[in-house]
C-alpha cells in the first residue's frame, strides 16, 4: 500500500513535468513525420513507417527513462524532501521501489500513447496492424524498464549528471555486448578474453530484447526465445532494483 502510494505520487509528479510532454509531443510529431518521409521514397512504405515508429518509441522512451530516472532518488535528497518522507513509518526499500514503479507507470502511459499512434499509422497504410508490432513494443517497454532500473541504481549513490552519464554509457554498452563476446573470442582464454567474457555476462544485453525486425517483416518468432528473453529481462531488472534498494538502505544522507 505504501509502495503504491509512493508510486502514484511519483507518477503524478512526472505527469506534471514539462520535459515529459516535450518528449512525448516530439515523438508523436516524428511518428507523424514518417508519413511525410515515405512520400519521397520508392517502395517499402509500410516497412519505413514501422521502423520509424518502433525507433521513435525506443529512442524517446529511453530519453524519458533516463532523464526522469536519474532524478528519482537524488533529486529527493537534493531537495531534502526525502527526510520528510522517511520520517513517516516507511522503509527505505519501499521508497526506492515505489519511485521505480511510479516511473514505470509513467513510461507505460507514454509507450501506450506512442504505440497507439504507430498502430493507427500502420492500420492506415496497410489496412491492418500486425500483432507482432505489439510484441515488439512490449519488449521495448521491457528494455525501458531495464534502463529505468539502471537510472534508479545510479540515482541512489550519485548526482543526476553522473547518473545520466553512467546510464547512457550502459545503454550503449548494452547494445554492443554481443560484440564484446566476439572480442572475447578473438582474445581466446587470456586475461583480456576472460575479462571481456565476464563483462559480457555482467552488462545488460539489450539486443536480446530487440524484436523490431520480426515485427517489421512479419517473420516467425521462436516462442522459446521469446519466453527466455522475457525471463532474462525480469531477472536482470530484479537484480538492478534489489541492488538499488540495498544501496539506498545503507546510504548516509548527511
Amino acid at each position: 500500500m505504501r509502495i503504491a502510494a509512493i508510486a502514484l505520487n511519483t507518477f503524478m509528479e512526472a505527469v506534471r513535468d514539462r520535459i515529459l510532454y516535450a518528449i512525448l509531443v516530439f515523438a508523436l510529431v516524428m511518428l507523424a513525420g514518417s508519413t511525410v518521409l515515405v512520400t519521397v521514397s520508392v517502395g517499402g512504405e509500410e516497412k519505413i513507417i514501422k521502423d520509424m515508429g518502433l525507433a521513435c518509441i525506443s529512442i524517446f522512451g529511453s530519453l524519458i527513462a533516463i532523464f526522469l530516472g536519474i532524478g528519482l532518488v537524488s533529486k529527493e535528497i537534493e531537495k531534502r524532501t526525502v527526510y520528510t518522507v522517511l520520517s513517516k513509518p516507511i522503509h527505505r526499500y519501499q521508497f526506492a521501489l515505489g519511485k521505480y514503479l511510479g516511473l514505470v507507470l509513467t513510461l507505460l502511459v507514454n509507450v501506450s500513447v506512442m504505440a497507439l499512434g504507430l498502430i493507427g499509422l500502420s492500420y492506415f497504410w496497410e489496412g491492418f496492424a500486425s500483432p507482432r508490432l505489439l510484441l515488439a513494443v512490449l519488449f521495448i517497454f521491457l528494455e525501458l524498464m531495464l534502463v529505468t532500473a539502471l537510472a534508479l541504481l545510479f540515482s541512489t549513490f550519485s548526482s543526476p549528471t553522473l547518473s545520466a552519464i553512467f546510464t547512457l554509457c550502459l545503454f550503449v554498452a548494452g547494445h554492443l555486448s554481443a560484440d564484446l563476446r566476439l572480442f572475447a573470442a578473438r582474445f581466446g582464454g587470456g586475461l583480456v578474453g576472460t575479462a571481456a567474457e565476464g563483462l559480457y555476462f555482467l552488462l545488460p544485453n539489450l539486443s536480446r530484447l530487440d524484436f523490431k525486425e520480426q515485427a517489421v517483416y512479419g517473420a516467425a518468432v521462436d516462442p522459446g526465445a521469446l519466453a527466455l528473453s522475457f525471463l532474462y529481462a525480469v531477472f536482470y531488472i530484479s537484480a538492478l532494483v534489489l541492488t538499488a534498494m540495498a544501496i539506498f538502505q545503507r546510504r548516509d544522507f548527511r
Partner: protein
Amino acid sequence: MRREGLAIAALLTVSLLGSVFLSVWLDGRRAQATPGQGWLFLPDSRHLKPVLLGFHGVAADLLWIQIVQYVGTHIETDMKFPQLKKALELATSLDPRFLEPYRLGGLFLLYLARQPQAAVSLLEKGAAANPDRWELFHDLGRYYYLEVQDYDRALRWWERAARLPGRPDYLPRFVARLYARTGHAETALELWSELYRTAQNDYLRSLAVQEMNGLKAGQVRAR
C-alpha cells in the same frame, strides 16, 4: 520604452531577413560548386552497424530514401551514378531483408548506371539473404531472360521462384514455356498438365490445354 521596442523589432526583422538571404545565397553557391553531389563518405557496414545500436533498419530506410533522391538528382543532371553501387551495398548490408534496395536498386544499376554485373551481384546477394522470397529469384530470371537471353539460367531462377510461397500465378506458366523453348518438351508437358490440374480458372485451364496440344504436335512432328 517604446523606442527600445521599435529598435528590437527592427533588429529582429533585419536578422530574420538576413538569415533567409544568406541561406538562399549559400544554397546557390553550394549548388554551383557541387551539382547533384552524393555522399562524401560511405562507411563500411561492418563498422557502421554496431554503432547504430540496433537501429540499423531505420538507417537502411533513411539511406534508401537518400539513394532515391541521389538517383533522381543525377537523372536530372549528368546521368552519372558513381556512388550508387556502394550506397546500395551499404543499405542492403544494414538491412539484408529490405527488398526494395535489391529490386529497384538492381533496376537503377542495370538501366541507369549501366552496370549489369553489379546489378546481378546485388540481386544474387539479396536472393542468398532472402531464400524465402520469390521476388529476387524472379528478378534474376527476368534479367537472364530479357537482357542476356540465357534461357537456361532464366529457367533455373524462375523455377526456384515458382516454388516459393506468394509467387505470382504466371510464374509456373513461364517456367513451362521456357522448358519447351529450351528443348525440354517432356518436362514442359508435365508442368503444363500440373498447371491444368491446379488451375483456379477456365482461362488458365484452356491455356494449359492449348500449350499441351502444341507441345504434343511438336513431338509428333519431331518423330
